[in-house]
Every structure is written in structure tokens, then in C-alpha cells.
């Protein structure tokens, strides 16, 4: 045998030896994963809810939580966490919220990591901007808005008192908070302690508003876990602390709070700004749930009944600027819509789809990168559904686009009604009967009384369209109820338009009902807000709607079945999610 052959043999056997060595260490490492135990455990407590501190005991969970920080560019067809301006995508909303802060700023939300940061930065929390844009009476958001945006809530409520916390101004609370001005301090969003008990990491409900409201539905209070519930129920209830419709109920009592002599929406006390005691009307955050009993599916009519029952103490969220309707603004009622769904009926919890189990080494862990299940259909849907991922994604696409047709139809109908009522009011104000009333408020009231049935239709139809727009699943959480709610939205808006025509006719005013659609509304789509010539939000915040999404919306109403069918069969469809930029 030659020397060179020998060298080759040695080389080959050496490579195999190295390969074996590596394989062995890989096998041993993977075996060891089955027995990993954390060392250096830290003591967790409510006093320090920082995710970095609790995360020391749960490094994998902290890693997943931190992924939310970087998920900012991921959009799905109807949601995701890419923070484009929803006012730009759905301009009808600027008509819905005329006279309210939302008219100026409403973005697709980012993930839980940003919940407090987004709240601090939104223009809805900027008194100076809103005052100079027609909302002269806006005096600053109350602390109640912070209920679901801070991981420090427990300590704040303990320190300030429940009603006092809700009633104090948002920025005053920020200024008097302990801790640094970082995501580990004042800017901390949702965190471990919001859902977990420090004693044993068991699930718990921590939001006092959620606990009070769940009790109003028939749940039993529990000192440690907020309410008594099984673990599977808790896997939904912890989400339902915040993903709900809510409002600020006046308590009817005065409270003494800390207020600023010169309230400013900045994080520190300066410019001669002092804290003084002030006696004001107390408010508390509450969910309108008393009609929705435990164990029952939610029905939209329960909101009508509830808000009717408190109408004396809480007549509206705001008065619409041009129709003068007392309007209820719906927030993000995921809990309500989901409750009657086929998934809920089968005991599927929010966490089953939004926090599916995944493998970390040999461990099975709940994914704490909380996001759309479309990002990982294999991990979430396929746990129960055995069809292919493509099939499942197509089902979601079908359900969401069908719901989107219903929802957009309701929104366009409400926008048309708003336009018609506004016109009717203008024409009526010209009639001698109303023109002779010199006091503008009295004149407005006289017209409102004359057209009250139409205004009630505005209130009820907008509640429905708003409910479906604000709900984050484009109908997927409960397609049947989504269709019913949207259909009612269309029906009440059309009834409102009939009333506008008939009331107008009574006064000799001829009104042709309007029928606004996608193209009409594009014309009023707002551009990114500029302050002093500079864009208020820096990228990626408040970018205009991604063009793929607008193209999709354009096909939906009227329903372009050829293009939608192509999209659904995968020929032209964008993937159910994509990375913007």
C-alpha cells in the first residue's frame, strides 16, 4: 500500500473519529436537556414586577417575551403588530369619532411589550395637541386609561387607592411614580406579574376592574387568584382582564386626589408645576357586563341594555361633533365576541391558540411570544385540527374576508348615516322655526329632540360597526355572531337613513340617502400627523396602510369574487402574514 493511500485512510478515519466525538457530545447535550434545573433562583414578589427580575427564574420565557420587542414589522391581513394608521386604512372611523380624541390617532397596536410605551406616545394622550385641534375641553386622559397598560398597577392601586388611581390624571401618575423612566420602570408594559402569582406562578386575574366586572357576572372573588376558576378558564380570564369593552363609570362621590397646578403631558414636574390636593368627582373603570351572566354567550343587545341602565350617570363617551348623538365608543371586545364561539363551546382557551405549546429542548413550554396564531398555524391550529397548514390558513382567510365584507358594509352604512344626519341638521338649522333660537346650544338641543329616533339609530348602529372594527380578529373569534352584529349595524344604519328622509320630508327638506363606499372614503383618508412640519411618529409608527392591505380592502366591498377566489386559492394571495419592509 502506498504512502498517499495510507495518508488518505488516516485522514478519513480521523474525520470519522472527530464526527463521532461531536455526535456523542450532541447526544449527551440533548439528553441533558431533559433534566435542566434552574440554579440561583431569585425571590419574586409584587413589589418588584420587573420582567427582567422574574425572568431570571424563567430564562426561556423571558426570551419569548423579549421577541415581542422585535415583532413590530409583522402584519397579517387584518391585524398583526405592524403599527400603521388604522384611520388611514379605514377613514370612515374619522367620521365615527368626530369630536373625540380617536379621530386624530388610532394605530394598529404593537405587542404587549409596548403597551405602556404606546400609551405614553399616542396623540390621544397629548393635551396640547388635542386642545389645539378642536378638542378645547380635553383636560388630559385619566389614570383609568393606565389600568391595562402598566405592569406596575398593583403597586399604584395600593399606593393611591382604587378610585383615586382612576381619577388622577395619567401624566400626574407617571410623574409621581417611583422608578426609572425605562421599560423596567415607568414605561413597563404588560409583565409576568399581571397574569402570574409570585408564590407559585399559578394564573391569576390582577385588574381590579376585571375582578369587579367578573363578580358582576356571577363569578366568586378569590383573594389569591382574583376570581375562583379552573386553570383552563384562567387561560382565558387572564387575557379577558383587558381585551374587553370598558368605560369610566362616575362613582357619584367626591375624592381627593393629587393634581398639578399646570398639567402637562411630560414625564416630569417642571415649569413651576406643583402638586396640590384637589377634590373632584370620582370615576372607576368598569366593564358593561352586568347583563352578561356567567356561562352565557355574550350578545350585542346586552350592551344596549347595560348602557341604557346606566344612561343617567353615564350618558355617553362623547357627543358626536356633527350629528350631536351621544355616542358609546367600543374598545376591543375580544372576550365578549369569543365567548359564544364554537371554539369556546369546546373549551378552547385564548392561550391555546395565541400561546401554543412549543418545545424548548426536552421541555414543553407555553409560547410567551403572544401574537396572531397565523404566525404559527402548525403549533396552534394543528394541535387539534389534522388538516394541512395550507388548508387551515385558507379557512382563516375565507372566514376573515367574509367577515370583513360584513364589517365594511356596516361601517360604510354608518358613515352614510352620519353624513345624512349632518346634512339634515344643517338644513333644519336654516328653517325659521329653529333659526329663531339664538342660543346655539338650545337650538342644537331643539333639533336633536326633533330627530331623536335617527340619533338613536346612529348610536346603536355605530356601537355595532365599532364593535366589529375594534374587535381584533376580523370576525374569526366568532364568525356567526360577527355576521349577526354586522348585519344589525347595516340594518340600524339604513333605518336611520329612512328616518332622516321621513323627518326631513316632514319639514319640507328633501334628502337623498347617501351610499358611501371604499373610493369615497379614500378621499378623506388622513395623512400622518405633522407637528411643526415634522412627522409626529417616526417610522414604523403611523405609516400609511401597507398597499397590499388596501388592495385587499378594495376587493371586499363590493365583493370582487374573481379576485377574492384567486386570492383564496393561493394564486395571488399574500401569505397570511408578512414582514413589512
Amino acid at each position, binding site marked *: 500500500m502506498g504512502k498517499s493511500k495510507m495518508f488518505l485512510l488516516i485522514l478519513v*478515519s480521523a474525520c470519522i473519529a472527530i464526527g463521532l466525538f461531536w455526535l456523542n457530545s450532541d447526544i449527551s447535550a440533548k439528553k441533558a436537556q431533559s433534566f435542566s434545573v434552574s440554579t440561583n433562583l431569585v425571590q419574586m414578589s409584587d413589589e418588584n414586577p420587573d420582567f427582567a427580575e422574574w425572568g431570571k427564574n424563567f430564562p426561556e420565557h423571558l426570551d419569548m417575551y423579549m421577541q415581542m420587542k422585535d415583532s413590530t414589522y409583522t402584519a397579517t391581513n387584518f391585524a398583526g403588530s405592524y403599527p400603521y394608521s388604522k384611520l388611514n386604512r379605514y377613514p370612515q372611523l374619522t367620521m365615527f369619532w368626530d369630536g373625540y380624541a380617536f379621530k386624530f390617532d388610532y394605530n394598529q397596536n404593537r405587542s404587549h411589550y409596548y403597551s405602556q410605551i404606546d400609551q405614553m406616545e399616542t396623540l390621544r394622550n397629548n393635551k396640547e395637541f388635542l386642545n389645539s385641534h378642536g378638542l378645547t375641553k380635553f383636560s388630559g386622559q385619566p389614570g383609568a386609561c393606565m389600568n391595562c397598560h402598566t405592569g406596575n398597577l398593583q403597586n399604584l392601586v395600593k399606593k393611591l387607592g382604587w378610585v383615586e388611581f382612576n381619577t388622577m390624571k395619567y401624566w400626574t401618575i407617571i410623574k409621581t411614580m417611583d422608578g426609572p423612566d425605562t421599560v423596567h420602570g415607568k414605561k413597563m408594559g404588560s409583565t409576568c406579574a399581571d397574569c402570574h402569582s409570585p408564590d407559585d406562578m399559578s394564573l391569576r386575574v390582577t385588574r381590579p376592574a376585571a375582578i369587579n366586572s367578573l363578580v358582576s357576572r356571577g363569578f366568586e372573588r378569590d383573594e389569591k387568584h382574583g376570581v375562583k376558576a379552573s386553570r383552563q378558564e384562567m387561560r382565558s380570564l387572564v387575557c379577558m382582564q383587558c381585551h374587553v369593552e370598558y368605560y369610566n363609570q362616575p362613582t357619584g362621590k367626591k375624592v381627593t386626589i393629587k393634581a398639578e397646578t399646570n398639567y402637562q403631558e411630560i414625564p416630569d414636574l417642571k415649569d413651576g408645576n406643583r402638586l396640590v390636593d384637589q377634590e373632584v368627582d370620582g370615576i372607576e373603570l368598569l366593564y358593561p357586563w352586568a347583563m352578561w351572566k356567567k356561562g352565557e354567550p355574550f350578545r350585542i343587545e346586552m350592551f344596549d341594555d347595560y348602557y341604557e341602565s346606566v344612561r343617567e350617570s353615564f350618558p355617553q363617551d362623547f357627543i358626536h361633533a356633527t350629528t350631536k348623538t351621544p355616542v358609546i365608543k367600543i374598545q376591543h371586545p375580544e372576550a365578549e365576541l369569543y365567548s359564544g364561539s364554537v371554539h369556546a363551546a369546546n373549551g378552547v382557551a385564548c392561550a391555546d391558540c395565541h400561546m401554543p*405549546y412549543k418545545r424548548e429542548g*426536552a421541555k*414543553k413550554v407555553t409560547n410567551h411570544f403572544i401574537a396572531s396564531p397565523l404566525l*404559527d398555524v402548525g403549533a396552534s391550529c394543528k394541535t387539534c385540527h389534522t388538516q394541512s397548514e395550507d388548508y387551515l390558513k385558507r379557512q382563516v382567510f375565507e372566514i376573515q374576508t367574509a367577515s370583513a365584507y360584513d364589517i365594511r358594509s356596516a361601517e360604510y352604512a354608518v358613515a352614510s348615516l352620519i353624513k345624512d344626519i349632518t346634512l339634515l341638521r344643517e338644513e333644519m338649522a336654516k328653517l325659521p322655526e329653529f333659526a329663531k333660537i339664538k342660543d346655539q346650544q338650545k337650538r342644537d338641543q331643539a333639533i336633536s329632540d326633533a330627530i331623536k329616533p335617527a340619533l338613536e339609530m346612529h348610536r346603536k348602529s355605530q356601537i355595532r360597526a365599532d364593535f366589529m372594527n375594534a374587535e381584533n380578529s376580523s370576525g374569526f373569534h366568532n364568525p356567526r355572531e360577527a355576521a349577526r352584529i354586522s348585519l344589525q349595524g347595516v340594518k340600524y344604519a339604513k333605518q336611520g337613513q329612512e328616518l332622516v328622509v321621513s323627518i326631513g320630508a316632514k319639514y319640507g327638506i328633501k334628502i337623498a340617502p347617501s351610499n358611501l363606499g371604499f373610493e369615497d372614503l379614500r378621499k378623506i383618508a388622513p395623512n400622518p400627523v405633522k407637528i411643526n412640519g415634522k412627522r409626529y411618529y417616526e417610522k414604523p409608527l403611523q405609516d400609511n396602510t401597507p398597499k397590499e392591505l388596501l388592495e385587499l380592502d378594495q376587493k371586499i366591498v363590493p365583493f370582487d369574487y374573481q379576485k377574492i377566489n384567486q386570492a383564496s386559492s393561493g394564486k395571488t394571495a399574500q401569505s397570511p402574514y408578512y414582514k413589512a419592509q
Partner: protein
Amino acid sequence: MSDKKSLSTLYLIFIFFAVFVVSGGIYTFYNANGFSYLSNDSKACNNCHIMNEVYADYMSGPHSKEIGGKPRATCAECHLPHEFLPKWIAKAQSGLSHAYAFTFKLESLPENLSATPKSKKIIQQTCIDCHSGFAENAINATTTPQHSNKDALSCVSCHKDVGHKRDF
């Protein structure tokens, strides 16, 4: 002379590596629980922790119930052909691909596994092998691929939970 000497040194080096490869190979085989894969024991399939849930499902299902100290059917009895040669060929094939995936592709494996067409075929055949005695008349046109094309039903289309609940 010196040439011969250096060649013998090379031989020595080669023998050293050869011994290392053989002993290392045996140790690796042992370390990877290699011998368990030669058995018919369902526990061997659960060496890989990604099988934990499926294994737990199997243990609570009817096929794992023991009769006379032996389970009614083990993983291998459903997932591998019953004839000697096809069984060991299939075992070697899936063994190699499993080892490859587990060593190099662990991070990208899906959370919920799906059966391959080949695997589905084997499972259907093994259902028939054991149950044909009394289920023969149920094996009708809808289950034969040539009659209903690729959408043919299989036994597990209806008897979903007999093996394990998930992952097919």
C-alpha cells in the same frame, strides 16, 4: 529502509484511529440507546422527547392496554410492515431519517407532526393485517385508493383515537 519505517508509523497511526473509531462507534451507539431501536418496545420511540405527548396519548389509548403482560400493539406494530424484510428496511430508513432530523434539524421541526403518505399507507396495511378477520366487510370501495382516488378513507379517518390523538 526509512521509507518502510515511516510507512509502519503511518500504519500505527491508522490503527490508532481505527481502534478509536470502532470503540468510539460502539460507545456512541450505546450512548444513543442504539440497542433499544433493535427491539419492538414502544419505549424506544419515546427516547426522543418530541414523542412525549404522542407517547402519553398512546399510553392512554386502547392499543397500549396489556394482555398477558404484552400490549395489544406497540408503536412498531402499527408503524412498520409486518413481514420480516420490509419491516427491517422500513425501520432502517425511518431510523436514519429520524436520527438525521433529530441531530441537525431539531430547531426547525414542526410542533405538531404529520404522517407522510408512505407512513399512512403502512398504518392502513397494519390495521388490515390485524383486524381483517372481522372488519373485512367494512373495507369497502371507499377505502380502496383505486376506487376513490387520493381521497380514499382510511381506518383512522374514523377511528382517530385508537393509537394516539394527535399528529397524523
